[in-house]
């Protein structure tokens, strides 16, 4: 049985792409091909025009940082500091730069107090922040986040959304695999819908999220604001990206 079946997908520089679909649709399998952890049985995967079969995972990781769903699969050092240093040293950064980047990462992700702690003592949410800190410290041009919001409270999710906005503004290419439709919606990414190993839709969030039936076939529900928008008897050209946009449009139109 194929986990991926004839998937053709091109992600351009600086794009923000969300991959959604039912469990077992092939989302994580697809992501694993991006860093060469998996090689295709048929077809090719190219990163910056180069076939992943000709590159090592280490080389690909320099360009593509992946934060997997379960941080325990990715953390292994004695201390949080060491964990961040590991990747940086592997990629050949000088000591001075390593120290500086560690400082930035710990500060930005609010992990300074855990500098010397073992990653194992961190909470689930903190571990997720740590894996992200590690990846961003070496500044890859592509950042892949696999279910980044699982187990995160609203404050942490807001921080994550902020980080994604920041990455976008610095021109990074971002790939988000997520079930959290409500989290994805305000980001307005390009959305790729997968089901049973295939891509069944691909386009701007504002268009893709309107197709309720197609989404349902991939076990994806519509964002609340899109369902609301679709049921209005009068409405603007495209669905409200957030609550404020909805309110602004409705203000003055209601008796």
């Amino acid at each position: 049985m194929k986990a991926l079946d004839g998937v053709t997908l091109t992600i351009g520089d600086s794009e923000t792409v969300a991959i959604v679909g039912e469990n077992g649709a092939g989302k994580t399998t697809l992501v694993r091909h991006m860093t060469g952890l998996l090689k295709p049985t048929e077809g090719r995967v190219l990163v910056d025009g180069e076939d992943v079969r000709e590159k090592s995972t280490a080389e690909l990781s320099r360009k593509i940082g992946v934060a997997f769903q379960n941080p325990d699969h990715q953390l292994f050092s004695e201390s949080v500091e060491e964990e961040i240093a590991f990747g940086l040293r592997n990629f050949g950064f000088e000591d001075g730069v390593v120290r500086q980047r560690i400082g930035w990462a710990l500060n930005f992700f609010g992990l300074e107090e855990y500098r010397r702690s073992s990653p194992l003592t961190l909470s689930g949410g903190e571990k997720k922040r740590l894996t992200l800190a590690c990846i961003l410290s070496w500044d890859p041009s592509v950042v892949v986040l696999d279910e980044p919001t699982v187990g995160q409270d609203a404050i942490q999710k807001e921080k994550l959304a902020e980080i994604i906005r920041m990455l976008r503004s610095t021109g990074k290419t971002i790939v988000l695999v997520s079930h959290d439709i409500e989290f994805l919606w305000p980001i307005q990414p390009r959305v790729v819908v997968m089901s049973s190993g295939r891509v069944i839709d691909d386009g701007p969030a504002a268009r893709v999220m309107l197709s309720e039936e197609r989404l349902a076939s991939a076990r994806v529900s519509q964002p609340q604001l899109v369902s609301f928008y679709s049921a209005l008897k009068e409405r603007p050209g495209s669905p409200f990206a957030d609550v404020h946009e909805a309110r602004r449009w409705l203000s003055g139109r209601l008796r």
Partner: protein
Amino acid sequence: MGTILSVKGLSFRYPDAPRAAVDGFDMEVSEGEIVALAGPSGCGKSTLLRAINGLIPHMYSGDYVGDVLVDGVKVREASMKDLAQKVGFLFQNPENQIFMFSVERDVAFGLENLGVERSEMRGRVDEAMALLGITHLAGRAPHELSDGQKQRVALAGVIAMRPRLIILDEPTSLLDPMTARELVQLVDRLRREAGITFIVVEHRLDLLVRVADRLVVMNGGRKVMDGTPADVLSDSRAAGYGISVPAITRLEQLLVSEGLELQRRLLSPLELAEEVNRRL
């Protein structure tokens, strides 16, 4: 409706921890309620759950003050065997809970451990599978099933023990949106048909708020908010406690503050659209 759970002045500090994880917590839950429990990471939700199902103090020792009573029985004093029949627990990841060769055997597992008599066990297993809509999966191997199905198997195993209170710890976090919705509807149906009380820890409140009777918010080991979801979510403090107010609820609140009059609160997207359509 009787009280099924009573938490009185509960404080618990893990060994070597600088602070109590739960600090002076009080809560009463009535039979048949669905209570949503939310709060920022590290607020003490997991510790509270463990104190309810007996893992604290039976598996985790520490400084324990106060009492937890389930169905009139003190958790501190009851055996894990007794507690297993009063409080069921569904893990976040069903893989951690199901491990037998067939669905049927898995559902029966807890009962076998208790030494329940064969004919009684058969009846309970069949009842649990029927309630969860998985009778047709009885002979299947659990590892072959979808995530949603696995979760139903795990839940059936819990229900076969006939606990009156079931705790679900972030049950939707690994599920796709439709399966997550189905799980919440299932919880509601079980409450109505079997009178089971549920405490659900959940970050993704958009799925749960219309079904929950109560939303209890924790912060720093304490209870900081407790009321109907409509009341708690319309309190401006909620966002400060890391509570995700659903988008449609936020829109509803904004429109109400601008003069929209509504008979009911916590409307669904379609319901709010209907109200708006009447005034467009």
